């Protein structure tokens, strides 16, 4: 580490045989290079970690607000003259009344609220004031009336969603200045919202509907939720678990314990490692060409998504399972064989249970990968706009549904900036699922991992 032994020409002014305690210029240079290299490494690590936190911060700062939703409490008189002209409370008659009939009732209710609290905003008509509420509000009312026809003629208190722009005003997305330029909202409406808030009529609370409601159309971002997407993803995960785990474990047992060393086995192994690296979108093409176009399975159905994701997850599970099987020491097998077990018994009764924690860990990680996968699902039609909840399995597997990551993509393709907030919120939900799954995997590994 010193230049004491070097016989290289030294620059003038430096004594040829310098002290061991004083660093020569060349040593200094080398140490400086050492320091620079080290700092470059540190900078790279810092960059990596900053990127992670930047990513999380961007998503959280955009998305956390979607867990809050602004709503207005309005007492609405369910006018029989408007809703049930026949007066028979006949469901079929009631179903013919469209949301257009409900809108004036809400408008009247809101006007009354404003009168009660003495709220007056100059230059704001009653109609404009009612636009403060979501276009979803009449539909909400209609659903309620169809469910409780007996309530017609009474005054019922509703918590109605506020318009997406009003909601955005309280989340910092909309300001008085931007409202003046916006066709969909006016500064007067924002003033009214402020006054309603002071009166305690307009409140912001935890957004339960975000997790339970289905998707909503382009003009009502405030009503859009993840209900159908969560169910769709859940259905797909069930299918992946039921298909990929048994298939993957069976294939691994064969390859690890039974397969003879020959070309055929080599071919299978090369195949599996290549499949693990095939771009996910190619699996989407496979699903479209074979499951939908050839086999005639329905588009947007969780069953197709589940099958495609199964094929994608299989290599991950096989690789993890083989590693788990390999880590069980041969002495276990020998002992089982020694006391008269057959090969199959030694594997199923002894090796497999010991490898189970490793297999489960690999499976959960594979499932987590499958849960976040988007590209192949785009091709098999999961981008469709789905408002109906799929039925219970097994028929529900064939009903159209959305999926969590695809819902995110879907929302980013829409014009209203409120959907960007929703998309970030959906990402947070997705990430929470992934963290929980990976956490379980880590716990399993810690709890059951055995060193031999």
């Amino acid at each position, binding site marked *: 580490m010193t230049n004491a032994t070097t016989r290289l020409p030294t620059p003038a002014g430096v004594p040829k045989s310098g002290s061991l305690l004083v660093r020569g210029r060349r040593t200094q240079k080398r140490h400086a290079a050492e320091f620079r290299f080290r700092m470059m490494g540190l900078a*790279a690590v810092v960059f990596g970690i900053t990127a*992670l936190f930047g990513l999380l911060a*961007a998503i959280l700062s955009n998305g956390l607000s979607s867990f809050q939703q602004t709503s207005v409490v309005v007492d609405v008189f369910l006018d029989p003259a408007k809703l049930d002209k026949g007066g028979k409370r006949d469901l079929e008659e009631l179903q013919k009344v469209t949301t257009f009939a409900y809108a004036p009732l809400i408008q009247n209710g809101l006007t009354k609220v404003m009168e009660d609290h003495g709220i007056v905003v100059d230059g704001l008509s009653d109609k404009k004031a009612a636009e403060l509420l979501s276009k979803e509000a009449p539909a909400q009312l209609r659903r309620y009336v169809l469910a409780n026809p007996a309530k017609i003629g009474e005054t019922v208190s509703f918590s109605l969603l506020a318009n997406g722009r009003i909601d955005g005003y309280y989340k910092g997305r909309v300001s008085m200045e931007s409202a003046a330029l916006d066709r969909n909202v006016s500064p007067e409406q924002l003033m009214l919202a402020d006054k309603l808030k002071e009166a305690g009529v307009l409140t912001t609370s935890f957004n339960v509907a975000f997790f339970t409601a289905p998707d909503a159309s382009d003009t009502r971002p405030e009503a859009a939720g993840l209900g159908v997407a969560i169910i769709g993803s859940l259905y797909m995960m069930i299918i992946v678990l039921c298909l990929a785990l048994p*298939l993957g474990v069976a294939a691994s047992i064969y390859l690890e314990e039974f397969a003879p060393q020959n070309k055929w086995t080599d071919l299978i192994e090369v195949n599996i490692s290549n499949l693990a690296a095939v771009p996910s979108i190619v699996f989407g093409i496979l699903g479209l060409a074979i499951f939908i176009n050839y086999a005639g399975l329905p588009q947007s159905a969780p069953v197709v998504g589940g099958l495609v994701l199964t094929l994608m997850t299989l290599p991950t599970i096989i690789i993890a399972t083989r590693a788990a099987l390999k880590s069980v020491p041969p002495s276990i097998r020998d002992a089982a064989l020694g006391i008269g077990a057959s090969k199959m018994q030694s594997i199923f009764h002894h090796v497999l249970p010991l490898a189970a924690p490793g297999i489960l860990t690999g499976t959960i990680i594979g499932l987590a990968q499958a849960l976040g996968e988007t590209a192949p699902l785009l091709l098999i039609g999961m981008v469709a706009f789905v408002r109906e909840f799929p039925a219970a399995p097994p028929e529900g597997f064939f009903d159209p549904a959305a999926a969590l990551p695809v819902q995110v993509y879907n929302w980013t393709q829409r014009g209203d900036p409120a959907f960007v907030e929703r998309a970030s919120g959906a990402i947070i939900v*997705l990430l929470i699922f992934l963290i929980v799954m990976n956490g379980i995997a880590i716990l399993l590994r810690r709890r059951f991992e055995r060193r031999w």
Partner: protein
Amino acid sequence: MTPSILALIVLGLALIGFFVGRQRALLLSSRERVKLHSLPGYYGQALALFITVPALVLLGSWLFIQPALIENHVSAMIPDTAIPQGGAKSLVMADVRRISVGVERLVEQGFVTEGELADMRADFTNVRSRLAEVGVALGSDVEPAVFQAAKSYRSIGNTWSVFRTFAVLITALGFAIWAYLQIKPRMRARNTSETFIKTLLMGSSLVAILTTVGIVGSLLFESIHFFQLYPAKDFFFSATWNPQFRGGSDLGFLPLLWGTFYVSFIALTLAVPIGLMIAIYLAEYAGNSLRNFAKPAIEILAGIPTIVYGLFALITVGPFLRDWVAQPLGLGTSSSSVMTAGLVMGIMLIPFVSSLSDDIINAVPQSLRDGSYGLGATQSETIRLVILPAALPGIVGAFLLAASRAIGETMIVVMGAGAAARLDLNPFEAMTTVTVKIVSQLTGDTEFASPETLVAFALGLTLFVFTLALNVLALYIVRKYREQYE
């Protein structure tokens, strides 16, 4: 009867079979006073396996073959006159399928009885409006011949489903009875069922091969179809990409290839040095506390789904680059650009590169390091002059794997790179990639007849070949290198 219920019935039969088989073995052995060859459970297991496996295999292959056979039969019924000018038979077949679904629903919901349906003719009834009642929308009025074809499509399908149910149940019961009669105390039940299970295990390992065959088959089949409609020369060597859904489109592959390589190039320029430096620092320099924090943090990056990176590109990186770099420099006004997608993809690839390089650096034997230190080299000199050259093949392998990831990556480029196909050097312009175009040509309602749709398969095939070649090369290099030190 739907296939899933049929499968459940077969499984139920198998469960009963297990207990019956076990019981019979015990009964026979006590009656004949002969010791059983195997444990009683194995007799039940053998019986259950004989019930399920042949029946389910039959069901599976039936489901696989039925659509093709019916399709062939029905498409022969469609006269050439029923095919619109410039259209293709497969478009008509898609209509046939959709109409048959609608007719099925009409009958199910009780709008039409079977008898009425038999008399229903497209010349007299407005089929289109009837189908619209049950939510099946058709683009145009229905040709009589097409409607007849749809009706026979449905009726053949229904008849075959009945056949299928019987065939599967008869197979299950037939094997059940046969296997039941085989049960004798001397039967080598364990060996039988173990051989059976071993065959099943082998069968599952073939799924991987079947998947590859499916991928290659479907890509090749549809690509050949595409090249029959569109000249291969124009696809591979034209610099214009301009799909028109009315026909007469230019489907040149070069702009897409350029976009793909440009994005991947930026991503790799970011990811490879940083990923490598992270691996070096964590392996050679970092103290325990930093390593215990940084390693999992970077591994988390690897576990984040690409849609999250896509959103990050869309809402944060894209607008940032546009407002702070591209516009001040006068390079463009687009928030989706090659640079956006490239940088975000680079971040995605960092953990991939670093974990691969980490394995490789750790595989370099300690003796090489000790030798270098012994000669008086500093740590960084050792790394640069000894460890990296020794690890070079592995690092090249990691680089190739990262490149194959970058080329195949979809969501980041869909959300970050834009959709305009263009050959340009300015990295702040929106450009597009192969994967983006696969998504845009195949999303929504797709009919497998026009070159505009089929081009996606040709693109998919090219993508598959590229990534496969990179992977095979990388694995070859890595494997060869590993042999040196082991």
